[in-house]
């Protein structure tokens, strides 16, 4: 507990992190050289389909499994040489829950605090604080087996933050929750960042990564295929998509627009009724395009601006859609 806490600006840094599992049918390269740099106070999203290597990476960083190769620093401590220090400075919320149904929420929080070295009274006080912050006071002295899915998940998060870790690892924090409980969980995660906690979370929900993560990495088949802010990643796909209905004047309108500096790609459909432009920033391009059409005497029948989604990013990098979940 009473560790001298340096606050490194890089909370997590990995270099060529790898993990190979030996199975009966040979070996599986679950993580194949992951390089990550995660700053203090960030919510970092780790997005990918099931089996992409998200959980394996997270479990390595949380000291649960040893990397086959590579280096990592977590909260200022070396993962290989100082796992003990890493454990003191991180919190971890596993995917499938972490509480005994016969134990009370308060009981779980108190023993968790004491396992981190808190005194009995400190652990009790901290448990009360966490219960209040997560709105679990009414259920505090009931067995966790009586909790709803959302309550149990909040308690899991509470167990991860009892000792005020610098970094919190969340493995699929909202899987299995109803929309209301999910929104609630998102609020809790944002509140954690506001208190200065660095959050590393895995998810296979596009919306979740999009809504929560300050920066994110997309992982597929053990490799990171894209990394950046959600906006950066989407912009890197091919910019925004502007579709203009031009009533048969497609070829002419295309001539007018395809050499504009902010247009990356342009095409029109077979009948010449629709022109599709890939532009850097659609919200700036649309007014400009409208003025241009107006000046040239064309009256567009429609104009739509479509922002690429993270799915487009994934599609572009892997050729597959994240929404097509492979059978687990």
């Amino acid at each position, binding site marked *: 507990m009473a560790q001298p806490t340096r606050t490194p600006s890089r909370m997590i840094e990995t270099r060529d992190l790898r993990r190979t599992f030996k199975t009966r049918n040979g070996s599986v390269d679950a993580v194949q050289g992951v390089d990550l740099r995660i700053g203090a106070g960030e919510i970092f999203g780790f997005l990918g389909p099931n089996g992409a290597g998200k959980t394996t990476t997270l479990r390595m960083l949380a*000291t*649960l499994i040893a990397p086959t190769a590579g280096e990592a620093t977590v909260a200022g401590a070396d993962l290989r040489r100082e796992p*003990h220090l890493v454990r003191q400075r991180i*919190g971890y919320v596993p995917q499938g*829950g972490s*509480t*005994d*149904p016969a134990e009370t929420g308060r*009981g779980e929080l108190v023993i968790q605090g004491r*396992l981190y070295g808190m005194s009995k009274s400190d652990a009790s006080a901290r448990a009360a604080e966490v219960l209040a912050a997560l709105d679990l006071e009414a259920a505090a002295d009931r067995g966790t087996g009586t909790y709803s899915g959302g309550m149990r998940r909040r308690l899991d998060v509470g167990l991860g933050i009892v000792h005020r870790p610098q970094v919190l690892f969340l493995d699929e924090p909202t899987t299995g929750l109803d929309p209301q409980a999910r929104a609630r969980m998102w609020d809790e995660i944002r509140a954690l960042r506001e208190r200065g906690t660095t959050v590393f979370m895995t998810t296979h929900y596009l919306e979740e990564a999009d809504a929560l993560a300050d920066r994110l990495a997309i992982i597929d088949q053990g490799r990171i295929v894209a990394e950046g802010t959600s906006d950066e990643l989407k912009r890197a796909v091919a910019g925004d998509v502007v579709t203009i209905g031009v009533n048969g004047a497609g070829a002419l309108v295309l001539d007018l627009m395809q050499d504009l500096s902010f247009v990356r790609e342009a095409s029109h459909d077979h009948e010449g009724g629709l022109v599709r432009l890939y532009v850097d920033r659609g919200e700036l391009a649309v007014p400009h395009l409208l003025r241009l059409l107006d000046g040239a005497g064309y009256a567009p029948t429609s104009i739509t601006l479509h922002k690429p989604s993270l799915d487009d990013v994934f599609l572009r990098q892997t050729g597959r859609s994240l929404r097509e979940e492979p059978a687990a």
Partner: protein
Amino acid sequence: MKTLHDTWLIYRRSMVLAFRQPIWIILGLIQPILYLVLFGPLLERATQASGAEGSAFNWFVPGLLVQTALFGAAFVGFALIAELRYGVVERMRVTPMSRFAMLFGRSLRDVTILVAQAALMIVMAIPFGIRIDPVGAAVTLGLLALLGLFIAPLSYTAGLVLKSEDALAPLVQGIALPVLLLSGILLPMALAPDWLRTIASFNPLSHAVDAARALFNGQWADPEILLGVGMTAVLAVVALSLASRAFGRANA
């Protein structure tokens, strides 16, 4: 220091949780009591018919205690598999707590329950005419504690490795039954043919049973006491270090 502290925390938590579901403790008691009441009198008649001296219960109860310890401890792995499934073990592995304490705290809980069950059984055997050397009975409880510290960690290790009740059940049954039959708990090994007696002499439980019987009768000069207690103690140390490593190892 930290190991002791963590062991105490896990011990207390495990005790509290065990008593929230006392059905397992009660079931652990019912079986030996059934043996005592429904099988003991039979055995007494049989020994009287054969003209042997002394209470059959003096011979039978020490073995019954060892059997209770064997089965009580051999099944603790099932509770651990439930805890693995709840995610409790993984959650605690990420804390800086002592790995040995994860094992030792739980094992001490098992030993506490087992010794309490044994003490209760000894008391219940008194109306059946058992004559006990009190010091010997107390040392027997210590021997049972060592047996618990030998068998429970092995069951935990099996639970950690197999992670499934369906895989653990046949393993436990497959080992516990021959170990029971080769221990001389139900019938004296003296009745066995040479080959069977030779095999049984390699069964540590058979020496524990002989030691417990000598202790109950206050036959302090019997070398089986030292052999049984010493062997069980060594095996307990080996099992604890093995299981402690299993708790510490990343469960890939």
